[in-house]
């Protein structure tokens, strides 16, 4: 079934499906309901990092180096751990300045310089060509091998240029170009968002992962019995056994491992396509925190089966089969047609995903940062007078896409066929690593200047070109090999693969060491040697201090000049279309509380800045600057003035920090005062309660005394018996009055701290015994049996004997009042404390009342039908006394089962 037409049909059906997904996502985006606005799609789109290199090349690398393929994925994991610090800052800067590409970012940082933007673009395009050629090679090789099914034959490199139209990679390049144009340049988005493309890329990431896992599972568990079996058989083969502890044998050993890690740490940030999906296509900064672990997890998953497939291929397939094709040839050798086709589609996913995003990113750079600044400066073209330039912008991008893919094809023909996939890709990694110093330096160090950045990029690129690209061309026979063996003009010190005599390293490590020395050295050296211009100074501050600014004032405060609103509108309309311009002006007006076009807009610094930001979204910072400058009369600020503004701003920030501090202190003081006031109010309320309660308590006995004395006074002939009863009541009530007054006086002494305490060493057993004896008459009267348990040798406590007797009396008379004929008193020792329990078998206390019985004038009133006797102060005073000696008093009770009042005193 696997004939050419079937494979081609499957490939086109797959591309059609991708297009449908993209179309759907774009429609949803237009309707304001984006499908890609979540962290999972964002993470999957980052997986565009895994290209045909990963899909086919990792196995090839593993088959010769063992774990040598892993730094390419571990490095990014380490870098992503830093994303919270680095990428969040880049994201914020890019959103505030409407950055459209990596070149735009660098140009914008170094004074919106068109020269830097152009330089970055050139380096990126040349540097990425090998990488694109790798994808073309992988897709065409996989196609040519699959067509031969069921035989497994390796395609022969023909090394010729003249048979374009019979050449598979040529057609693949053209088809991919057409596809990319359809994807990425259907219309011009002011924010450079390609939501449809992102949706399709996320889908492709799923497909390639599933395809690779399918092969992995098939090899590991279908051909062999799991990992152990597979590795066991590999260890049994002498030619493979050496690869199982592989780090010593490989060229460069650990040094190579480390440099590959560093290289891929930079690649994950600065490959144009990674910058595109991570920064430009990002819809929400918060998606980052999920992607920080989801994306590394994806890389882990797609790498688990690389080694099993590599060893499976080495064990299973005849010698002569290229290890880069094991993923495909293993299923073919086992006659698994469906799996082989799935692998082909998976590889196609990996390659097309990379090519689409990479060429869109590069074409944006070529258009915005290379061609437009030049075209806009050419007065003869009169571009400034064209009413609508969106067509021109799209045309340039489409042309750039075709050109980049054809250049990739050319590189494949010139140099790619002789190299393994991973070696080709690493050349591109080394190229984009040259952006690391200027970008990372640019966001953390204000001192980096435009000249420094240009010097760094030129120096790094030159060394890369000399030590990596020249050798690649020479090896393929396009330059004399003598250049590599003896150096240019026979100068041994300048040999591209052992520059200045540095040898013994692998090619990538060697190139990275020299290019980074040149790059960073030039950046720091040149930056420090001359002062920056006003524009550079201000952009440096906009980038480095991004978290300390509001987006609108970020750039506007530096501008001074005259402009007119209609001029600005016309410029905008020319580049983003009149609909976009209208929308943008309306938004701006709304943010100022105005209505446009009814209200006139002031063409002040804020409006100019707004227009420039909008334009930068479509054109890039450098071109936008040129365009805005063409319609406004700007007064250049001197470096001194910029400094002044910056200093002023930092002064303001400082003052506002101090102000915040002061207001925080003030708030704290206010809260304290409020608390004190609340406490006072509460005390006042308590005092009022107290007075009213006590008056009430005094009046009750007084009333009855007055009533009975009046009866006796007015009726002298009351019977003797009656008279005695009345006098008894009067005596009792006066006693109650006396007790109440004594307790109130006592309480006020205790609470005000004027009470006298005679502290001594007290034996609580004596206290308990004395109290019980003192109350024995009461108990006898009421027929109460008292059980006392006083263990020998309990420790003495520090307390006041009289006060302790007062407490015990209180508890016992309380118990006597409520009990039903039985009271138990127990003394026991606890850790560091003496405990006294007084238990009665009365009606018990309701849980709600248990909390309040110790409060002043509170009694468990509903436990008896009538109001119980007593002032309601006894328990309160007792607790105060116990607490005075460092103890605790509480009650435990269940209604119907009596109550147990307990207290402790520290020994």
């Amino acid at each position, binding site marked *: 079934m696997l004939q050419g037409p079937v494979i081609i049909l499957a490939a086109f059906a797959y591309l059609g499906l991708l297009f449908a997904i993209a179309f759907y996502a774009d429609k949803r985006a237009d309707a304001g309901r984006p499908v890609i606005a979540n962290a999972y799609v964002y993470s999957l789109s980052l997986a565009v990092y895994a290209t045909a290199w990963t899909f086919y090349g990792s196995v090839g690398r593993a088959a010769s180096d063992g774990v040598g393929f892993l730094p390419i994925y571990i490095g990014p994991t380490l870098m992503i751990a830093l994303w919270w610090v680095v990428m969040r800052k880049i994201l914020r800067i890019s959103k505030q300045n409407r950055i459209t590409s990596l070149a735009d970012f660098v140009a914008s940082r170094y004074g919106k310089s068109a020269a830097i933007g152009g330089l970055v673009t050139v380096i990126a395009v040349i540097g990425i060509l090998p990488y694109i050629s790798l994808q073309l090679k992988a897709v065409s090789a996989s196609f040519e091998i699959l067509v031969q099914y069921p035989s497994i034959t390796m395609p022969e490199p023909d090394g010729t240029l003249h048979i374009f139209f019979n050449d598979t990679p040529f057609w693949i390049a053209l088809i991919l170009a057409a596809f990319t144009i359809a994807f990425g340049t259907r219309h011009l988005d002011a924010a450079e968002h390609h939501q449809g493309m992102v949706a399709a890329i996320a889908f492709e990431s799923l497909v390639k992962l599933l395809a690779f896992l399918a092969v992995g599972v098939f090899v590991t568990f279908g051909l062999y019995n799991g990992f152990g079996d597979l590795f066991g058989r590999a*260890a049994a083969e002498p030619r493979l056994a050496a690869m199982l502890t592989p780090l010593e044998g490989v060229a460069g050993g650990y040094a190579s491992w480390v440099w590959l890690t560093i290289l891929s740490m930079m690649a994950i940030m600065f490959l144009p396509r990674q910058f595109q999906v991570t920064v430009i296509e990002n819809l929400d900064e918060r998606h980052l925190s999920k992607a920080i672990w989801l994306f590394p997890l994806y890389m882990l998953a797609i790498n688990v089966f690389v*080694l099993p497939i590599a060893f499976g291929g080495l064990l299973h397939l005849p010698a002569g089969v290229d290890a880069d094709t094991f993923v495909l040839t293993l299923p073919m050798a086992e006659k698994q047609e469906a799996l082989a086709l799935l692998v082909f589609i998976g590889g196609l996913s990996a390659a097309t995903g990379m090519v689409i995003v990479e060429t869109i990113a590069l074409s944006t750079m070529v258009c915005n940062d290379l061609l437009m600044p030049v075209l806009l400066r050419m007065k003869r073209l009169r571009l400034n007078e064209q009413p609508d330039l969106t067509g021109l912008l799209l045309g340039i991008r489409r042309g750039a896409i075709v050109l980049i893919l054809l250049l990739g094809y050319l590189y494949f023909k010139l140099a790619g066929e002789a190299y393994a996939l991973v070696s080709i890709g690493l050349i591109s990694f080394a190229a984009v690593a040259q952006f690391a110093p200027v970008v990372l330096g640019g966001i953390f160090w204000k001192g980096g200047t435009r000249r420094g950045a240009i010097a760094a990029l030129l120096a790094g690129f030159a060394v890369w070109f000399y030590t990596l690209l020249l050798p690649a061309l020479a090896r393929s026979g396009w330059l004399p090999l003598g250049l590599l063996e003896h150096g240019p003009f026979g100068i041994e010190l300048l040999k591209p693969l052992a520059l200045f005599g540095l040898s013994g390293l692998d090619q990538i490590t060697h190139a990275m060491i020299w290019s980074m020395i040149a790059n960073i050295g030039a950046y720091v050296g040149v930056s420090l040697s001359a002062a920056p211009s006003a524009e550079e100074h201000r952009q440096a501050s906009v980038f480095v201090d991004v978290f300390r600014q509001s987006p609108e004032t970020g750039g506007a405060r530096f501008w001074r000049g005259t402009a007119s609103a209609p001029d600005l509108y016309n410029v905008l309309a020319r580049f983003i279309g009149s609909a976009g311009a209208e929308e943008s002006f309306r938004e701006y007006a709304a943010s100022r509380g105005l209505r446009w076009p009814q209200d006139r807009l002031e063409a002040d610094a804020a409006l100019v800045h707004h227009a420039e930001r909008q334009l930068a979204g479509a054109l890039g910072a450098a071109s936008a600057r040129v365009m805005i400058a063409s319609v406004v009369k700007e007064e250049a600020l001197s470096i001194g003035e910029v400094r002044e503004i910056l200093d002023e701003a930092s002064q303001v920030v400082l003052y506002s920090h101090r102000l915040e501090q002061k207001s925080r202190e003030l708030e704290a003081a206010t809260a304290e005062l409020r608390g004190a006031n609340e406490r006072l109010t509460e005390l006042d309320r308590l005092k009022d309660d107290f007075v009213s309660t006590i008056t009430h308590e005094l009046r009750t006995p007084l009333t009855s005394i007055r009533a009975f004395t009046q009866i006796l006074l007015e009726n002298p002939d009351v019977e003797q018996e009656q008279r005695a009863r009345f006098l008894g009541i009067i005596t009792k009530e006066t006693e109650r009055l006396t007790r109440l007054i004594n307790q109130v006086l006592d309480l006020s002494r205790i609470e005000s701290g004027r009470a006298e305490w005679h502290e001594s060493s007290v034996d609580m057993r004596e206290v308990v015994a004395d109290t019980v004896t003192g109350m024995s008459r009461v108990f006898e009267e009421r027929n109460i049996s008292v059980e006392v348990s006083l263990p020998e040798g309990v420790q003495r406590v520090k307390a006041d004997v009289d006060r302790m007797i007062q407490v015990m009396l209180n508890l016992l008379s309380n118990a006597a009042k409520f009990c039903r004929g039985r009271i138990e008193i127990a003394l026991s020792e606890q850790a560091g404390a003496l405990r006294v329990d007084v238990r009665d078998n009365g009606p018990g206390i309701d849980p709600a009342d248990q909390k309040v019985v110790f409060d002043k004038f509170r009694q468990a009133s509903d436990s008896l039908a009538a109001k119980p006797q007593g002032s309601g102060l006894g328990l309160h005073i007792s607790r105060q006394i116990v607490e005075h000696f460092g103890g605790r008093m509480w009650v435990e009770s269940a209604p119907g089962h009596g109550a147990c009042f307990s207290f402790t005193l520290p020994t």
Partner: protein
Amino acid sequence: MNDETKAQRFVALCMLGLVLFNFPILALFNVPGTLLGVPVLYAYLFIAWAALIALMALVANR
């Protein structure tokens, strides 16, 4: 947890990774022998990698 603490935790994780996947720790595992049938170095790399990702997820979700 504020952004500053989170940033410091991530930087520490990166440092941890740099140590785990570098000489000389790597050399300790670059020896013959197997763990559940998988060569020690391979097993170490994948387990350490997975652990690092788990820690990153932990810090990210705090």
